[in-house]
């Protein structure tokens, strides 16, 4: 069994799986049960100033589904904790005392005023919590009051508040970023400039999940009206991975620890975040969908994977970052062709429909439903692989150097050549003469 012990900005936990700040972590009862189930840590649901906020008294969540009603995306219009500050502080202190080996991070959202932060930070520190996470991410409700994403969308505010926090507490500071911006690197750089110890991302994405076609209200519907919510779950993972990678490979934020969040549902998702530079991951939707028990699969899966790879958890972190590049640096001399495993093929014809109707007419269909790749047409776009219901049935295989690409008639070159030097590029850099 691989060692999953995690050390994230000096905060130790028995594994890198934390529960994100959200309803699963909003009180002692839940968090104790989560720790019993094996979670490495929690980010306690966001604390605010008294009087505590209130929530709607109707539905707070909306969802989209895949086949068999598998939940793919969830959105919520829930606000930060709706319990008094004192209640939360008392429970945090009790849980941390009872579970000293687990990470206890406290999420905070108070107005963008120095006094507010100066007031609350010592109260949180007194609980014995391991660190704080600044909620600059929630896109709904609180942002309209100048908090949450309203702060996260203005790098100067991020830097300012991060600096206050570093000034008024000795606890490590994690800044939670909103994805509702155009370039995630700017808020990340601001957090670093403010002295933050780490960033966590992504928070939820502004969204409307569906519209009720009988009442014409967005869902979730409160008395016939709906408001945008924050979107999360498996559907947002690709967006989150991209943003994590952007920060991981940005020279200005290089080395800034990242807590990865966004659709982590299985150990595999977690491993991908880690490989793209996250030091640990936070989970919410998967726990909300399946319960706390899923952490068992995450732990056993990651452990088995590390053992099979023969690497440590630290080895995994950031391992894929050097392979993330810009399009212009991709090797245009890399030539692949689709290959269909006829033994695995179940003859559904989806590859044919996809290629024939929407791509490059590079798959043929015979009378007996044998589907074959026409190499002279195949551009290796991968759509057939993506729509095939049988995993591994269609693969992309590289043509070896020296082979002829039947599509272009050209010999495959062993040399690397990208767009920056391509003759069709008006701005191409001429090779030295």
């Amino acid at each position, binding site marked *: 069994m691989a060692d999953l012990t995690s050390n994230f900005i000096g905060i130790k936990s028995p594994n890198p799986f934390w529960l994100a700040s959200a309803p699963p972590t909003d009180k002692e009862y839940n968090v104790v049960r989560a720790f019993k189930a094996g979670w490495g840590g929690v980010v306690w649901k966001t604390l605010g100033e008294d009087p505590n906020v209130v929530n709607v008294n109707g539905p707070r969540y909306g969802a989209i589904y895949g*086949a*068999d*009603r598998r939940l793919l995306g969830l959105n919520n219009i829930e606000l930060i904790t709706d319990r008094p500050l004192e209640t939360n502080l008392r429970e945090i202190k009790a849980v941390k005392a009872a579970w000293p080996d687990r990470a206890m991070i406290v999420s905070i959202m108070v107005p963008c005023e120095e006094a507010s932060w100066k007031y609350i930070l010592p109260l949180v520190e007194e609980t014995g919590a391991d660190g704080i996470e600044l909620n600059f991410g929630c896109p709904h409700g609180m942002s309209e009051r100048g908090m949450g994403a309203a702060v996260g969308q203005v790098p100067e505010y991020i830097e300012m508040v991060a600096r206050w926090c570093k000034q008024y507490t000795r606890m490590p500071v994690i800044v939670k970023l909103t994805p509702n911006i155009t370039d995630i690197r700017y808020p990340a750089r601001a957090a670093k400039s403010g002295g933050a110890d780490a960033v966590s991302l992504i928070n939820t994405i502004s969204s409307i999940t569906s519209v009720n076609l009988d009442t014409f209200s967005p869902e979730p519907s409160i008395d016939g009206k709906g408001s945008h919510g924050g979107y999360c779950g498996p559907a947002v993972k690709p967006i989150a991975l991209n943003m994590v990678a952007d920060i991981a490979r940005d020279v200005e934020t290089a080395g800034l620890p990242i807590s990865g969040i966004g659709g982590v549902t299985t150990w595999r998702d977690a491993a991908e975040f880690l490989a793209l530079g996250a030091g640990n991951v936070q989970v919410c939707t998967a726990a909300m969908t399946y319960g706390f028990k899923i952490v068992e699969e995450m732990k056993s899966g990651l452990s088995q994977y590390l053992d099979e790879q023969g690497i440590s958890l630290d080895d995994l972190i950031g391992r894929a970052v050097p392979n993330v590049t810009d399009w212009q640096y991709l090797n245009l001399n890399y030539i692949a062709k689709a290959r269909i495993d006829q033994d695995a093929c*179940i*003859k*559904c*014809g*989806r590859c*044919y*429909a996809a290629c024939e109707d929407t791509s490059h007419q590079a798959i043929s*269909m015979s009378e007996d*439903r044998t589907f074959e790749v026409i190499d002279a047409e195949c551009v290796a776009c991968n759509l057939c692989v993506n729509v095939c*219901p*049988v995993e591994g049935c269609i693969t992309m295989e590289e043509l070896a150097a020296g082979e002829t690409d039947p599509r272009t008639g050209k010999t495959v070159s062993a040399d690397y050549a990208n767009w920056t030097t391509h003759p069709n590029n008006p701005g191409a850099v001429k090779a030295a003469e």
Partner: protein
Amino acid sequence: MTNTPFTPGIVPARLGAQDLAENFSDLHPPLDGHEALVAADRCYFCHDAPCITACPTAIDIPLFIRQIATGTTASAAQTIFEQNILGGMCARVCPTETLCEEACVRETAEGKPVLIGQLQRFATDSLMAADGHPFERAAPSGKRVAVVGAGPAGLACAHRLALHGHDVEVFDARPKAGGLNEYGIASYKSTNGFAAAEVSWLLKIGGITLSTDKALGRDITLEGLRGEFDAVFLGIGLTGVNALRAEGEARDGVADAVEFIADLRQADDLGALPVGRNVVVIGGGMTAIDAAVQSKLLGAENVTLVYRRDRDAMPASRYEQDLATSRGVRFIFNAMPLEVLGNGAATALRCEYTKAEGRSLSGTGETFDLPADQILKAIGQTLEGAPEAVRLEGGKIAVTGAGRTSADNVWAGGDCASGGEDLTVTAVAEGRDAAEDIHATLIGGA
């Protein structure tokens, strides 16, 4: 009455009313909404889908399943009915395991096809329960067509003709319309009077007059119909029954399986139906299976199905064979009947084992006696009472193209016509296609 499965002879009420009701309840209880959505989600929406090719009526199966999955069941039913107006019955009786579901790519992938038949029933039942009829007649054409036989072929033909604005009169020799849907087919595949309800629903298209108790050759003649109508469609089925050609065939207790099934289908009280203690069914098709299973369900102690060839040669599908086995029917393969033994009434059936050499069968000389107080013959049906004006071929009415017979303006389809398997769904396809050809002919000739 205190009869039990062990009471000797052919007697009624071997089982109590509750057991009988349970035994003859729906073979596949209908899917509820949740089950239908789960089942529908398994469809891959294949390109040029193999299930469509495998369906004799070429229903666009992936489309109707997608319509179910997206919450538009009425549209799903429309997709089905456009191709097969008896889609409700076909959903119940089609041997899907040898048609659409055998072709399903998920059968290839996982050995578990999408539940196409049950999804089709979900869609068609939903629309029929809402009493909707999704078709409107075209303007009256002024043409009149006679359809002889109100079975699947005749009904499908009549509906399609009526849809095109023609006036149709459907004749049937029996007191009720429906043909084998009403008088054949195992009870547990068509419960709660579905066959009759489907006919009533189908007639909502309008323009169809039903004349029952009118037999061809007795009450009406083809010549008379040809004089009175612009076209005639023959869907008269196979009403003759092959003889056993075994000694003692006339003994009491020997009967035709089709009659046994018809009596069962028309019975108001299953407890009043007599059934043997030791039933032997001879044959290997669906009729044999239906008769054997239902004998067992009525409370026969022993039911044995004797088939002259081996399992692989049996026309009934493996699924149907397994169904029979699960109900307690015993199969004896490679054996043929020699003689019905008994003194007045049958007491046993003497059989001889067979061996096959190519298509020819011969006895091995080894015989055995099966106790039998009831012997049901299910060794095939034949065309009976075909009009002289139409040419026959291989014992059936010869047809070319979309059911054209040798006689002008006379079409034929269903079991009585040459070509195609003798299945409800095939009959529907033939009736429908003949109707289109009749329509084209009548309009073209106008």
